[in-house]
């Protein structure tokens, strides 16, 4: 992206988010870097000002056009750096926060960045947060080189980092639509608006990796299957009409299509099991998840899914429809299909890599998925060095999903340390 470009279009994934944004709910997620020292807010503020020009695609505000939303260069210097709050990922309003679409918080030794999903996905957020943490450490007097997830802030942004890779890599003749069939949702007592229960489980990466490998699956497959199995067991215990149980698994497309974009570039798979077909053991669920992901995770299928998603924005009828009608349509579609077709979300960002000299100062990274409207526990996972953290964002008071999930890991011999905002 050219540094002087003053506006640009939202990418394909981003286009649905502003239409769903309400005064009670937004699609926002959080990436946290935990250092081994207490954060100095003034230094963090300076680091943010230094880093932001390197990310011109985040240095924006969102505006309404007649037909589409668009991003425009934000004239404000940077968003404020605030002390952390106990209700992360609350709704975004476009006029707040100096009109920036990401928020920066600090708490003890944590630097947390909350991104509105229209800006980027987990990968973009991790690169931004790691670059910010690296610059913070530099300003604290440490010598931190660039590399891996830490970008060189003396260089301008690359064109490939700002590209809409959905547009670039679509073009399949086939179109694969996601299923909109309604599934089981775990229920509980809803928290008041803007509040969410956050529970992070910290696990030795080598232990969970060994366990997953011993069962012949990847870590993503393992935790997604466990989450699916926990929901399946919960529904069975409720002795109600048995619906399908599904877990949504977002997958970054960067590796498959060789993209370097730091904007959204991921798709979601939905893995389902149908309890009406019979009783499942965890091993059977694991096998189903693993086989399905391996079957679907190939370039041709992903391209066909991308093409199907792009159909909406490329249709002439849709393009000529005024924005308020599009918003209305997106809102209704989200109400009818959105979370209705997924029981839970399991987003594993994978391993975050940072330069070796920086690793001495970084203890852990966390990924928190945004709280859902129907999905009780939405799970975000990320690995760093030998630490794997799994964070649940739960809109219900009850913690039975998290408890079943983490105690299952304990029973499998995987130690878990818990941190939570539940007092």
């Amino acid at each position, binding site marked *: 992206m050219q540094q002087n470009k003053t506006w640009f279009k939202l990418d394909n994934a981003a286009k649905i988010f502003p239409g769903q944004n309400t005064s009670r709910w937004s699609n926002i997620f959080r990436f946290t870097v935990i250092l081994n020292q207490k954060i100095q807010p003034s230094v963090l503020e300076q680091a943010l000002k230094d880093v932001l020009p390197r990310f011109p695609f985040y240095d924006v505000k969102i505006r309404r056009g007649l037909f589409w939303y668009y991003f425009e260069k934000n004239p404000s210097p940077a968003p404020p750096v605030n002390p952390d709050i106990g209700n992360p990922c609350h*709704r975004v309003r476009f006029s707040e926060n100096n009109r920036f679409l990401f928020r920066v918080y600090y708490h003890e030794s944590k630097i947390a960045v909350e991104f509105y999903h229209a800006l980027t996905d987990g990968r973009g957020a991790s690169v931004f947060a790691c670059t910010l943490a690296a610059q913070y450490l530099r300003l604290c007097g440490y010598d931190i080189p660039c590399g891996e997830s830490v970008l060189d802030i003396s260089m301008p942004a690359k064109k490939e980092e700002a590209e809409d890779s959905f547009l670039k890599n679509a073009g399949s003749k086939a179109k694969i639509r996601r299923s909109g069939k309604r599934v089981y949702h775990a229920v509980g007592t809803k928290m008041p608006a803007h509040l969410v229960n*956050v529970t992070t*489980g910290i696990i030795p990466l080598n232990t969970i990796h060994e366990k997953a490998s011993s069962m012949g699956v990847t870590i993503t497959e393992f935790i997604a299957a466990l989450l699916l199995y926990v929901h399946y067991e919960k529904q069975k215990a409720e002795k109600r009409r048995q619906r399908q149980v599904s877990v949504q698994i977002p997958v970054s497309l960067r590796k498959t299509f060789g993209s370097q974009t730091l904007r959204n570039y991921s798709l979601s798979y939905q893995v389902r099991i149908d309890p009406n077909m019979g009783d499942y053991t965890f091993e059977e669920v694991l096998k189903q998840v693993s086989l399905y992901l391996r079957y679907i995770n190939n370039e041709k299928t992903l391209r066909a899914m991308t093409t199907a998603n792009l159909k909406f924005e490329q249709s002439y009828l849709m393009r000529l429809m005024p924005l308020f009608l599009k918003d209305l349509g997106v809102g209704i579609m989200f109400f009818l299909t959105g979370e209705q077709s997924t029981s839970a979300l399991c987003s594993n960002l994978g391993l975050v890599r940072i330069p070796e000299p920086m690793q001495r100062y970084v203890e852990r990274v966390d990924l928190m998925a945004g709280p859902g409207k129907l999905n009780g526990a939405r799970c975000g996972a990320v690995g760093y060095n030998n630490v794997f953290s799994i964070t649940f964002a739960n809109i219900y008071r009850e913690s039975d999903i998290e408890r079943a999930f983490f105690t299952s890991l304990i029973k499998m011999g995987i130690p878990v340390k*818990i941190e939570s905002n*539940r*007092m």
Partner: protein
Amino acid sequence: MSYCVNCGVELDSSAKKCALCSAPVINPYKEQNKEYPLPYSDKVVLPPKVRRRYAAFIISMIIIIPNIICLLTNLIFFSGTLWALYVNSTSTVFWVIFISPFLWKKTVSWLLVIIDSVAVSLYIYFFYYINSQKGWFWSFALPAVLILAGFAGVFIEWIKRRRPDWPKVLIAVFSQICLYSIIFEAMLQTYLKGAPYISVSLIIAVSCLVIIGFFVAVQKNRHLRAWLSRKFFV
């Protein structure tokens, strides 16, 4: 470090109970007076609400413009009649009930009910006066409005004080509809026929009682309640 005896997970040093099962943390080796940093901030910051007054002001302006146009058209081109007053009075009552509460910094429910009742009463009185009719306003319309205002006032105060959950709110709403329809018809029949006969309101009342019965069942059945919450969340 402490572990939950129930779940087996290691807990944060600051934890006083297990975040998964709420079991209290009792560790005799932990320093009791030491302040451990919390993993998450304990400060909850609720985002500010929508700028309602600004939106209400814009809507007020949008309502005023056609009303002025109607009034001017009436005065200039149709000076013999005053049909614009019907438009103006209807707009005014709409504005008082639906828009003006958003212009207040703090909504006072009892004052709101009084203002709305006065506005509706004046609106009805306007038609009563214009049509030069006698009797029905004082003997039927005004008492009906005042009783409705009383019902609304009691309902709002009950919501504010008790903060009931949604099935109870719906039970209260349908109970009020049931009761009010009977009172309304009795008053109307007394005015028209001199005796409080009831017929149509009985159908409304029976329908309301069926709905109330359903929501009483919802109130008692946790699963049904959760299912309805899930299906009709807003």
